[in-house]
């Protein structure tokens, strides 16, 4: 049987996932000293690890070229896709929030609000639910700049501690949704390698608790 392939989101989630793997007793030597390699293996486990950007983790799992993936709920909400989301891994916790200049009354007035965000789909869904028409402006870098430069009335962004907001004179108006890292599985892989994947999931569940 070919190895089970797991796609990991590079960066912070990667570190937390490696910690989790170590708790499972996996040999993570290659993951710690990966150099420039993009596909790594876990000796004795018949598992391959692929490192990718968050949105790409979803793409690889959706297509079944990776069987499992570790990715933030923020990316899942933004990108969507068809896969099984079977476990909340509990780490990488933060939240989406609506934020803007401190003290401003966001909901007042009749003018159409402009929202700057890296997550246009999450933003649209949030305001759709409120039945509120808004304009979304997609920003790639520091979203906090947009209200400061008066490009937008507010932002929808990931907030962890809120210190970036505070330092720039912004505040959270409203929480949108909480997010954390999720384990996702390709629809076909779960059926084809049911025993192997369920075993792995059980192992992970037991160390999470």
């Amino acid at each position, binding site marked *: 049987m070919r190895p089970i392939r797991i796609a990991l989101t590079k960066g912070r989630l990667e570190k937390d996932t490696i910690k989790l793997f170590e708790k499972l007793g996996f040999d993570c030597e290659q993951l710690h000293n990966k150099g420039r390699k993009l596909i790594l293996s876990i000796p004795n486990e018949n598992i391959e690890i692929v490192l990718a950007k968050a949105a790409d983790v979803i793409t690889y799992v959706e*297509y*079944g070229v990776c069987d499992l993936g570790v990715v933030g709920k923020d990316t899942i909400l933004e990108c969507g896709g*068809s*896969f099984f*989301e*079977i476990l909340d891994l509990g780490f990488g916790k933060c939240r989406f929030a609506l934020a803007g200049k401190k003290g401003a009354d966001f909901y007042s007035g009749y003018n159409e609000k402009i929202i700057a965000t890296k997550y246009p789909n999450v933003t649209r869904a949030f305001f759709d639910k409120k039945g509120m028409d808004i304009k979304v402006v997609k920003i790639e870098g520091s979203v906090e700049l947009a209200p400061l430069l008066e490009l937008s009335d507010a932002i929808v962004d990931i907030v962890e501690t809120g210190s970036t907001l505070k330092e720039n004179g912004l505040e959270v108006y409203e929480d949108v949704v909480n997010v954390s890292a999720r384990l996702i599985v390709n629809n*076909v892989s*779960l*059926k084809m390698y049911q025993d192997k994947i369920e075993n792995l999931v059980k192992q992970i569940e037991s160390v999470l608790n």
Partner: protein
Amino acid sequence: MSKNYLITPEGTKDYLFDELRIRKKIEYKLRDTFEFRGYNQVVTPCLEFLDVFNMSEKGMPIEKMYKMIDSKGRLMALRTDTTMPIARLCATRLKNEKMPLRLYYNQNVYSINQSLKGRSDEVLQSGIELIGDSTDKADIEVLVTAIKCLQNLDIDNFRLEIGHIGIFNNLVKLLNISKEEKENIRQLIENKNYPALNDILDQVEEKEVANIIKMLPRLFGEKEIFDKAKLLMQNNSDLIKILDYLEKLYSILSELNLSKKIIVDLGIVNRAEYYTGIVFKGYIEGFGEEVLSGGRYDNLLKDFGRDLTAIGFAVNIDAIFNAVVKVKNISKTIPQVMVFAEKGYEIKALEHLDKLAQLKIIAEYSLKDGLEETMNFAKEKGIGRIDIVNENINTIEI
């Protein structure tokens, strides 16, 4: 505005050479599988009134249809599904047919997919519909036909997964919650999103029902699933009846000696408004999407004014092609022979071509003036044999 005359729209492509030959072979094998079981082909228009696909809540999502407007201002759509046009046919031109009616189709369906995902908006589907019979015999016939489709394509590593939409529909009926919340629960089961499903169901009042629904996405696997499910659902006779029925189908199918190929998934809940009985999907190892899907839909034809039960499935030919063809390089078949006619022997040469065709030899007629030119051209194309036609027919190898 720039003109787009050198490219095809996203999600479409031109099909070339051996790719088409392989696809045709797949189509023919499926056609044989259907025709030798007494199914008759129908072709429906590529263009229909949008209402055909959107007659009730069982319809297809409008935002995913390619739409047009006819000369009277009515909305039209490119065929986005074949079952609904067939339901229309059954209610109209086929309404006096003897039931059960066995129909098959092999045609493209169109839908707008999310951009930049590498999906095809134009997909070739082959499938069957068995109309006017709701017995277990019909269910088994269609399930076995689905399995035979994959087997006849020489696919070893496939799985056919069977579920029953009645389990979800019966359970969700017992919950005193809004339609939106029900849809939300359905989606969470479909995505096997255990954590979010638990959160939602912890808030409903009907604890016993909620506990069963929580388990639904986990109830997939082999035979042992029935015991697990029956224990869990023992207080609900409707559910037990459905489980007994599924188990019966499962054990009959196991006579095909395909244990391990057939799996049960009680968490199949796609298109819950549309399906009414068994639902099933086919997978091929190493290919991330389903290649076959179908189920029983006893209420659809009623919407078209004809109260008939039905079951069917569709095979996605493009998915099968991608799953079976590991070699990505599509080549072109090179003719074996080039036929050169000397002046005045053109008709004789063309008849020679016909004879070669009867012998299943692929030959190409040379349009060049002289023999030398013909030989050079044949060499360039990699054709190793030339038949020179004059009084006689002389074969030379080059």
